């Protein structure tokens, strides 16, 4: 099907400075149970194309679900017209942007394809999981789900570029709510953090029905636990909270389009300015952050971004020093800075913008036991449940599902509603302990929102357990 559409596009390619077509098909299936009842099964087959034209310095795009010859012709006319109308009022000379023309293909390695696993087996797994979650009458709501997506794209450019990519994603999820008549607590499998590019083999690592009981038990522990005490001290964050911490207070502020001001009306600006790269000590010397879309099976892996830039691993922060922004080929041209392959669109119906992909904290040398042993008084927090940060990505407040006190170097009692607040510009400089590879989890979220028009996209974050000093922590009302 893609080749037929590609041929139609090539036949109609206009004489412009640059033109591309991104054909995207995303098939998905969501299976979920709630309180043991199978919820409505939902399938989707999303197919469309995005034409982009750079001409005379202007930029125009047209997205359409009509991929017939006449549909593509109409899209090309619309994109050309917008390029013409924007030529004299564009933020940059788009015709001067060195758009690449790559050729290649890339595919998620999948060992157990989703389609080869019978639907009834998947439903049975979720129903077993559901049963395993309902361990007590105080468990008042419980759910389990599998969300599979296969995203296939073909990117064609006027310079002969042709890239075919397939990303297969699986997102397992389960969660419970427990209530004792006075209060409600929730506990889940890392939010939806165990989202990866994979087939059903992911469930060999993330065994839902085996992990279910532990999640429900922790919810019951929380129900009788005291609130997290108000204190200033050491905060030990699990990877499923580090994911959010990296995302909000490293990833977003380092997106070059935010630094250039594109997002100021919606997602916000950044406390980071262009002159800080190469100069600014973002975190302690323990902090090494890499952007790496080439990692096998992480959620946002690919071979080329949506502007055709080849993926590669890049250090964003090295030994705490800020090195490079998350900037696409267009943003790099505008800012005169080097960046990464991060131009990404959520679907065929949105233009690509600067995004995170896999943004990870590199492992250190401390075991989990060593990190805990070094804490006189602190809190270990797991699994994000609440997030809020200012539009410059500086002042934040995050809440977690599950907390445990650390006293005299040992994990002690469970505390509920653990929250903490801080300021990005100082928080990372207080990174005083970094877990080794044994403490790492490869995680991701399918829900990163940004852009005008708005887009939600999948991003990956891997991290070890991390220890921070002098953090304000507190509990519920």
């Amino acid at each position: 099907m893609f080749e037929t559409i590609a041929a139609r596009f090539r036949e109609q390619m206009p004489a412009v400075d640059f033109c591309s077509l991104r054909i995207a098909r995303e098939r998905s299936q969501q299976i979920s149970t709630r309180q043991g009842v199978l919820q409505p099964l939902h399938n989707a087959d999303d197919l469309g194309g995005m034409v982009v034209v750079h001409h005379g310095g202007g930029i125009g795009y047209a997205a359409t679900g009509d991929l017939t010859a006449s549909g593509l012709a109409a899209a090309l006319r619309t994109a050309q017209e917008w390029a013409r109308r924007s030529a004299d009022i564009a933020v940059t000379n788009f015709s001067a942007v060195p758009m690449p023309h790559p050729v290649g293909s890339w595919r998620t390695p999948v060992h157990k394809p989703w389609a080869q696993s019978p639907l009834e087996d998947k439903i049975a797994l979720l129903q077993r999981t559901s049963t395993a979650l309902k361990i007590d009458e105080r468990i008042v709501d419980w759910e389990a789900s599998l969300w599979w997506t296969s995203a296939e794209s073909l990117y064609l450019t006027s310079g002969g570029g042709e890239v075919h990519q397939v990303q297969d994603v699986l997102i397992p999820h389960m969660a419970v709510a427990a209530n004792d008549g006075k209060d409600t607590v929730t506990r889940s499998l890392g939010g939806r953090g165990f989202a990866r590019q994979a087939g059903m083999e992911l469930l060999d690592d993330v065994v839902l029905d085996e992990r279910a009981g532990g999640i429900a038990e922790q919810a019951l522990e929380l129900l009788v636990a005291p609130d997290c005490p108000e204190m200033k001290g050491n905060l030990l964050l699990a990877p499923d909270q580090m994911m959010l911490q990296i995302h909000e207070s490293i990833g977003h502020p380092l997106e070059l389009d935010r630094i250039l001001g594109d997002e100021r009306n919606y997602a916000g600006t950044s406390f980071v300015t262009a002159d800080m790269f190469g100069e600014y000590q973002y975190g302690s010397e323990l902090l090494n952050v890499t952007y790496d879309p080439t990692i096998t099976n992480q959620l946002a892996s690919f071979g080329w971004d949506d502007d055709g830039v080849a993926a590669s691993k890049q250090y964003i922060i090295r030994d705490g020093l800020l090195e490079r922004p998350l900037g696409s080929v267009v943003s790099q041209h505008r800012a005169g800075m080097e960046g990464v392959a991060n131009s990404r669109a959520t679907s065929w119906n949105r233009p690509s913008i600067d995004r995170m992909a896999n943004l990870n904290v590199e492992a250190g040398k401390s075991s989990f036991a060593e990190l805990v042993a070094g804490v006189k008084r602190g809190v270990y927090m797991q699994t994000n449940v609440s997030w809020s940060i200012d539009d410059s990505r500086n002042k934040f407040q995050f809440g977690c599902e599950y907390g445990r006190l650390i006293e005299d170097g040992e994990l002690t009692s469970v505390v509920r509603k653990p929250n903490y607040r801080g300021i990005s510009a100082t928080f990372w400089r207080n990174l005083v302990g970094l877990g080794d590879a044994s403490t790492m989890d490869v995680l991701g979220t399918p829900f990163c929102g940004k852009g005008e028009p708005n887009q939600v996209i999948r991003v990956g974050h891997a991290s070890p357990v991390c220890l921070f000093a002098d953090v304000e922590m507190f509990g519920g009302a």
Partner: protein
Amino acid sequence: MQSDFETLADDLCASIPGHEVLLLSFDGETSDFVRLNHGKVRQAGRVEQRVLNLQLVHGSRHSSAAVVLSGDHAADTSRCLATLSELRSQLPLLPEDPHLLFNAEVSSGTHVGANTLPDAADAIDEIVAAGEGLDLVGIWASGGVHQGFANSLGQRNWFTTHSFNFDWSLYHQADKASKNSYAGTEWDSDEFARTMAKARTELDVLRRPARTIEPGAYRVYLAPSAVDEITGLLSWGGFGLKALKSKRSPLLRAAEGKASFSASVTLSEHTGAGLSPDFGPSGFRKPARTTLFENGAFSQTLVSPRSGAEFGAVTTGASGREAPQSLEMEAGDLSTDDMLQSLGTGIWVNNLWYLNYSDLPACRMTGMTRFATLWVEDGEIVSPLNVMRFDDSVYRMLGEGLVGLTRERELLLSASTYGKRSTDSALLPGALIDGLRFTL
């Protein structure tokens, strides 16, 4: 798009045997989007999309699929018939659904708004000219938004609206900006010029040296757009029956009679006065008004068909999210014109940002001030304020802390474009609050 949808629906429904039911819901749009930064065009283009959701029901088994349509009738019919075959093959593998509910009483209707929109590129030329010399950033969205419903029982519903929404900010520097919106169905150059002039005036205030305040409790005025952020977060699970019954609602304590708002707080889902269609994907028509809070007390919930079946309640035709789409808060008796005097000394908050719960069962929220937040002394604007984080219970903010609501209300049209252009709106007053707690 209406005739395309109805023709396709007729053909698909005709293919359904008597023992099955087919439900079709449609979302379509032809939207021009122009993104601006520093008063110039960053991205400009058009999105045309047609998405059909097919739900096939046999007894109490059902499955659904969403497909993107091309607009070519033959191709779309063929694709949808293939999809129906796939759904039909899934049904025997699925258990019976005890919570399935769809409208079996035919209730058809049509609403088609006139198209009086300006040419988007002409409007952008006017905006760019008006922003000359200013640091203007924002998004223009315009065009037709369409929704449809059809079922094999004979029901047909259609909704079309043509609107534009220019959502923008004028920046002074860093994070100091005036946030603005001009939305409607007919472009009025004079009205846009007035809106721009007001924004320029606000910018003058933002050029003054900014003040940073210490954490603590402050008297604040929340403009309607700031109130919208609070009610917007409440809408995520706060007003729905499912969240309530599963003990996950932030308003559970209010529903149980253990907490309430001030008697001046009355909230309703006012579909009859809103801008969204009055039908949903299961074919139920929505009541003109559902009162959610009355004189401070929890009243009714929004009930999706599925929740209606699960909990034995009458559905309000709400979507699965059970969130308001046309939220309305009753006006109070404070004058917006006199608000600086009413505020006295405190903080004028035009916009809040990135709200979330710090303790959901207690309905305790945290969030940031954003854009033009101003420090006021003795009824006079003194300076812009650097961003601050608040963390407080909504029961307190809209309860004992609520001094009053304004007589004037603003109709706020959603600028959300996640997946598609939103037709949601909210009609809200401003709120004067004593002792709002700022923490960072």
